[in-house]
């Protein structure tokens, strides 16, 4: 693949730092979306914090995909959400199987984190050994993106459903099909930033800015679905600020910017 190739992408912040902060915020966001629902703040605060998981995932995708996956960047984003779906539903439903239904809101986010780490690690090992991927950081990255996908999916679904109790969560987020929306929205927020920015002149700052914009846009989509007016306004304003910054950054980094009417006329 033309982009990166060696995987020595220059970094603004270390990957572990961004990942740790992103997942930490998302974990808090999952709890807050449950406990702040009586105050009507579950989408406003929960959604905002959960969008950090998309940034963490997008940053890890950047790191692993700069080695060249051979199948395009979207595949790893979809894999991340594939593992995330199973882990997120398992996190909510497994406590019920063991008779801990009333403790589910306390257990579910942590359990999702653990299950997604296990699934990500095993799938990562499988991509190295029988499948034969030659990327040295594959196992670690798979674990990371699996966690990011699971947290984004659980967080957005919980922010919409307003609860982590199995019966309410399944009824509001799964039977209404919101989780399918969360699947593709979070998936695109994770895979798109690097997919759009890759190339020889890729810069970490620009990719991260786009990742933040994508995270905020996902939050906006869920605010619209929930019809939470304050979240809609705040998310679209924040998104517009970050996205304008990204567009300006792209114009600055470009060799030259020619708008359509400025293309030189052919000499007669």
């Amino acid at each position, binding site marked *: 693949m033309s982009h990166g190739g060696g995987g020595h992408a220059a970094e603004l912040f270390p990957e572990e730092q961004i990942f740790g902060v992103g997942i930490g915020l998302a974990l808090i966001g999952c709890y807050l979306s449950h406990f702040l629902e009586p105050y009507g703040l579950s989408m406003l605060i929960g959604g905002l914090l959960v969008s950090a998981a998309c940034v963490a995932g997008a940053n890890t995708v950047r790191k692993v995909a700069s080695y060249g996956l051979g*199948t395009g960047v979207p595949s790893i984003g979809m894999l991340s959400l*594939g593992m995330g779906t*199973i882990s997120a539903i398992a996190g909510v439903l*497994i406590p019920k199987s063991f008779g801990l239904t009333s403790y589910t809101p306390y257990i579910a986010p942590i359990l999702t984190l653990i299950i997604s780490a296990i699934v990500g690690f095993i*799938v990562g090992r*499988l991509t190295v050994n*029988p*499948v*034969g991927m030659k990327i040295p950081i594959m196992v670690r990255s798979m674990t990371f993106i699996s966690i990011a996908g699971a947290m984004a999916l659980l967080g957005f679904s919980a922010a919409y459903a307003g609860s982590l109790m199995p019966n309410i969560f399944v009824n509001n987020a799964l039977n209404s099909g919101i989780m*399918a929306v969360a699947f593709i929205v979070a998936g695109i927020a994770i895979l798109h930033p690097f997919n759009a920015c890759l190339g020889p002149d890729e810069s970490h700052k620009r990719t991260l800015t786009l990742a933040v914009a994508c995270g905020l846009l996902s939050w906006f989509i869920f605010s619209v679905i929930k019809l939470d007016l304050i979240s809609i306004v705040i998310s679209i304003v924040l998104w517009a600020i970050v996205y304008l910054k990204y567009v300006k950054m792209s114009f600055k980094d470009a060799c030259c910017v020619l708008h359509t009417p400025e293309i030189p006329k052919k000499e007669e």
Partner: protein
Amino acid sequence: MFDINLIISLLEITIAGAIINASVYFIPVGGAPAAMATSTGVGTGTTQLAAGAGFTGLLAAAIMASKVGLTPEGIALILLSGAIGSMIMLGVTMLIGQLIYVFGVGVVPAADKCEIDPITKDPQKPYITPGTTGHGIPTVCFISGLIGATLGGIGGGLAYVALISLGFSPAVAGTIAIGFFFINAVLASYNIGGTIEGFHDPKFKKMPNGVIASTIASFVCGIIIILMAL
């Protein structure tokens, strides 16, 4: 807690994962070069094609599952419905793609990985533009794609049947099946590593590795799913 039905469902999920993985190797995926008609196959990635066919199969299976019960005949009908849905989806994709390649781009469908088409016995090499790796979707790739779609639909349907018989509601079962499908399809696409033409492609011989990986991954997912359903 230790129930024979759980073991059967676990086996069904594991086999479904292996079938989904195997199905991907049959589908003619051209990737980015095929989007410019400089490679054989449909111009998109493995994941997208397999997922498109698989989801249609899953929907077709789910509709049939809501009409018939989980008797042996019912399960056969569900799997068949999934296979047909998936085949229609991929068949239409390949047909319309082919129309664009032939009448829009103006290339002759030709396979790069075989001298003569194993099905029609037509020579292939003379029709390939120098510097490219084939064009469009020749007969052998089309047939191979249909076989792949059949397997994908059966695999998706089997996973859905297993989840429904574990007692999940259709929405939960469908969502889990989507995630499960993606894991297996992407594992196969990493093993293929880009493009494949179908069962005549040398990369088809990589299939055992992918199927082993998928069997293990599906078994792990199966255990997690069983824990949810206890």
